[in-house]
Structures are given as C-alpha cells and as structure tokens.
C-alpha cells in the first residue's frame, strides 16, 4: 500500500514537473510551423523561476479570493492527478476517491475560483473574460456529461482506471464507430475548455478578444507563476485523460510489473504520446482561424451533436 501511495505521488510529481515542458514544446512546435525558430522548450521553466523570484503586487481593493485563487488553480490539477491513470494501468491508492465526474468537478472548481478572482481584481477585462469562460463552460457542460454517460455505460463505471482497462479488454469496442465520435467530441471539448484556437487564441495579446488569458492579467510574481503553472497542468491533465483513458490506453505500467522501473518506463512513453498529440494540436491550431464569439455555440453545438450521435449509435447498434 505504501508503494501505491508512493506511485500516486510520483504521478503528481510527473504532472507538476512535465507540465511546463509540454507548454514549451507546444510553443516551439507552433513557431516551427510558422517557419520561425522559437524559444527553447525549457523557456516556461525559466519564466516560472523568474516569476517566483519576483515580488507580488496585489491591489488593496481586492479580497482574499484574489489572493487564494492562484493556489486553488495550482492545486486543482494536482488533485486530479491523484485520480487518473497517468503512469499505471492498475488503480493506485487514491484512485477510488473520485470518478471522472469528480475530475470534472475539481477542474471546474479551479476554473470557478479563477473566474471569481478575475471579477474581484477590478480590471475591466477580467470580468469580461470570466463571463466568456462561463459561456463556453455551460456550452461544453452537456458534451462533458454525455461523454461521461457513454463511458460509464460502456465500462460500467466512471472510475478512469476501470474505463481504461475496458478498452484494452475489448478491442472491438475500441474500433467501434461511436468510439471515434466520442474521441472527436472529447477533442473538441479539450480545445474549448483549454482556450485553444478555434475558440480562443492562447497566444493572443489583444485584451478585447481574450477569453482564457484575461483572467490572469492582474497577477504578478508568485501568483502569476502559479496561475501559469496551473494552466499548464490543466492542459496536461486533460491530455492524460484523453490519451491514457480514451485514445491510446497502451504503454502504461501494467498490473503484472509493479516495480519502480516499470512505472518509470511509462514516463517517456506517455510523453511520446503527448508529443504526437501536440503535433496534432499544432496542426489544428495552425489551420483554423479564431471563431467569432457568438459562433462558439456552433463549435460546441457540433461537439454536442457528435457526442449524442455517438450515444445513439452505442445504444442502438451495440
């Protein structure tokens, strides 16, 4: 049991440690696509180190919400990392503490706090971004629920570990049409949830068009570092759920080999999977233009329809 706790904490360490790297690789790949050289893939680590050394300035008008929000934004993905299969295929110590709805809840809790803090900051762009995030949020919520419903219908459980082993057990279900539709719906969901391109431009600097970024404009020093790190971890965690649970359930440390070496071997494999996903993400982001704000409902509507069609085809054709 102690070993399981240890592995569980190792998963958290991997999420905390490699999340900035993923961000750096993503930025670098994007620049490469645009025929530029781009910053080093370790730039996010340097940014974080610099921000952590700097003084933090907090408005006298802001309340405790503004000050605690970076910590909530940082810890929410950490808690999620306890619940999902980052490195191992067998359930670890905290695996049964919460299911996929729990994962959604914890992430939404972090998002909610960040939105509150944005309103609290008094910056005019903060509340605007917060309300837009809520708009995207309530449009993606039904997709989330339907995806979870299908998954729980298939695997008979909403615990991510059990869902993951279900795909390995039945390859026929893995190739089924509804699984493809489910994967695409979840991919669109990640794009919307993480503020990726057709919905929101993550690298834009124009405040009026911002959705995701405007909420952390008022932070400096440690607060800014934690917000940045938390955002990177959120993407990492969503990618883990997408890759390890839904798309490619292979390459994790199996129940047969519970040694530390086996678990450590899963780290490069998971990172390799992520690299492939990042390439896909960069292709998507480089080939699409940002949607107008009121067209986002069409994007999420498409995701919703795809998810429901997946559900219908699962219910009637299986």
């Amino acid at each position, binding site marked *: 049991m102690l070993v399981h706790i240890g592995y569980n904490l190792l998963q958290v360490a991997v999420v905390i440690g490699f999340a900035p790297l993923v961000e750096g690789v993503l930025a670098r790949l994007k620049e490469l696509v645009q025929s530029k050289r781009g910053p080093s893939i370790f730039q996010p680590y340097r940014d974080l180190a610099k921000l952590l050394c700097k003084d933090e300035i907090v408005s006298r008008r802001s309340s405790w919400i503004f000050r605690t929000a970076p910590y909530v934004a940082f810890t929410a993905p950490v808690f999620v990392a306890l619940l999902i299969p980052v490195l191992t295929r067998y359930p670890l110590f905290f695996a049964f503490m919460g299911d996929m709805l729990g994962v959604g809840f914890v992430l939404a809790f972090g998002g909610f706090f960040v939105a509150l803090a944005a309103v609290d900051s008094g910056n005019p762009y903060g509340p605007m971004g917060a309300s837009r995030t809520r708009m995207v949020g309530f449009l993606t919520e039904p997709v989330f629920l339907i995806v979870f419903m299908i998954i729980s219908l298939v695997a008979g459980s909403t615990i991510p570990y059990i869902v993951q082993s279900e795909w390995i057990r039945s*390859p*026929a279900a*893995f*190739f*089924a*049409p*509804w*699984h*493809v*539709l489910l994967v*695409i719906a979840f991919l669109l969901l990640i794009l919307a949830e993480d503020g990726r391109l057709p919905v929101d431009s993550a690298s834009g600097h124009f405040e009026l068009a911002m959705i995701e970024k405007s909420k952390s404009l008022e932070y400096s020093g440690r607060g800014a570092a934690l917000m940045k790190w938390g955002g990177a971890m959120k993407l990492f965690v969503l990618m883990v759920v997408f890759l390890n649970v839904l798309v490619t359930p292979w390459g994790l440390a199996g129940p047969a080999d519970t040694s530390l070496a086996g678990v450590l071997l899963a780290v490069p494999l998971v990172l390799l999977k992520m690299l492939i996903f990042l390439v896909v993400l960069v292709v998507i982001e480089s080939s699409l233009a940002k949607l107008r704000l009121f067209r986002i*409902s*069409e994007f999420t*509507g*498409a995701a*919703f*329809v*795809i998810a*429901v*069609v997946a559900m*219908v*085809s699962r219910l*009637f*054709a299986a």
Partner: protein
Amino acid sequence: MQAPSTSLLLSIEALASGLFLLTALGTVAARQLLTCFHLFVWQSILLSASAALLGLALSSPHLLAVAAITLATKTMLIPWLLRKTVHDEVYRIREIDQVLNIPTSLLLALVLAGVGYVFFVEMLRGIAVPAYALVNLPIGVAVLLLGALTLTVRREAVAQLLALLVAENGVFFAGIAIVPNLPAIAELAAAVDVPVYTLVVGLLTRRIHSELGTTMVGRLTALRED
C-alpha cells in the same frame, strides 16, 4: 490466421464508418464552401477505404472494384470537374446562405441521425444480418438523411450539389454492406451517372454565376419573362 485478420479488417472498417458519419455531420455544420468540398472528398476516400476493407475481409472482388471505381470518380474526377466548371470565386464563399441557422440544422441532423439508427436497427432486429451490415446500414441511412437535410437547408447551388453527392455516398455506403456482391456493372453505371450530373449541375451553376454574379439559387424564386 484468417479469422483474426478478418476481424481486424472489419474493426478498421467500423472505424472508417465512424469517420464517414463524422464527415457528414461536418457538411451540415460547415459554413465555408471549400470546407464542404474537402469534407466531400474525404468522405469519398473513406467510402472507398470502407469498400476496400470489406472487400478484403469478405474476399469479394466486386467490392474491390467498387472501391477502385469510387476512388477514381468521387475523389478525383468529380472534384476535378467541380473545380473546372464552377468559377473559382464561388469557392471563396465563406458564409453559405442557409434557410436555418447552423445550431438549428445541427439539432435537426441529430434527430435525423437518431431516426436512421432507431428505425434501421429495429427493422433489422428480426433478420439475421452480419455485424458489419449492422454498422454500415444505419450509418449509410443517417448520412443519406443528413445529405437530404443539407440539400434542403442550403441556398447555394454548389453546396446543394455537394449535399446531393453526400447523400449518394450514404446510399452507397449502406449498399456495399448489404449487397457485397453488387455487380460491378451497376457500380459502373453509377460511376458514369454521377459525374454526368455533376457536370450538368456544374455547367448550370457556371451559367447562373455568369448571368447573375451569384449562385444563391435560394433567391431564384420568380420567373421573369421578357
């Protein structure tokens, strides 16, 4: 040795059919004409891949012929004809004129896909059909209905033609699963037929475009005699 590779081929075919349905949903949701065009080409590639996989899995030379003919006509000849006959300006349309807005038509698409599934799975319940037909037939019917929906909703000549072709793809997709030994002559007839009507509609669209400067056929409601 034969059994696992057959089941693998059928699995990949199921994967292709999922993507096939996805492209049809894409044509309902797409606003840009060029996106519709590309989706149609991708859908035809998937149709051809699906026919080829089924042909390999069932060792049916007819289906392989269907795949080859589909690849030749729908992914090369028809797109080429469409690009040649219709003016380039038409493909730069970024907002296709629609009768209903996109969220509404997506919801209708949802209902139609549901109808395709519920109706056909219930219909097939009593009959002994192979598993791949149970995958392909509802998807083919759903795509046919989605194509018909797009055809109804759009007010743009080229978009309507593409919708018609999507519906036709759906019919074929259902067809290859229920009649694996479809005589190649029937497919050949369709292979001649479809490019011909593409050509006719394409030329007509070109004429409309050169006369009126637009291809929004939804506006052509009154006959002018002078």
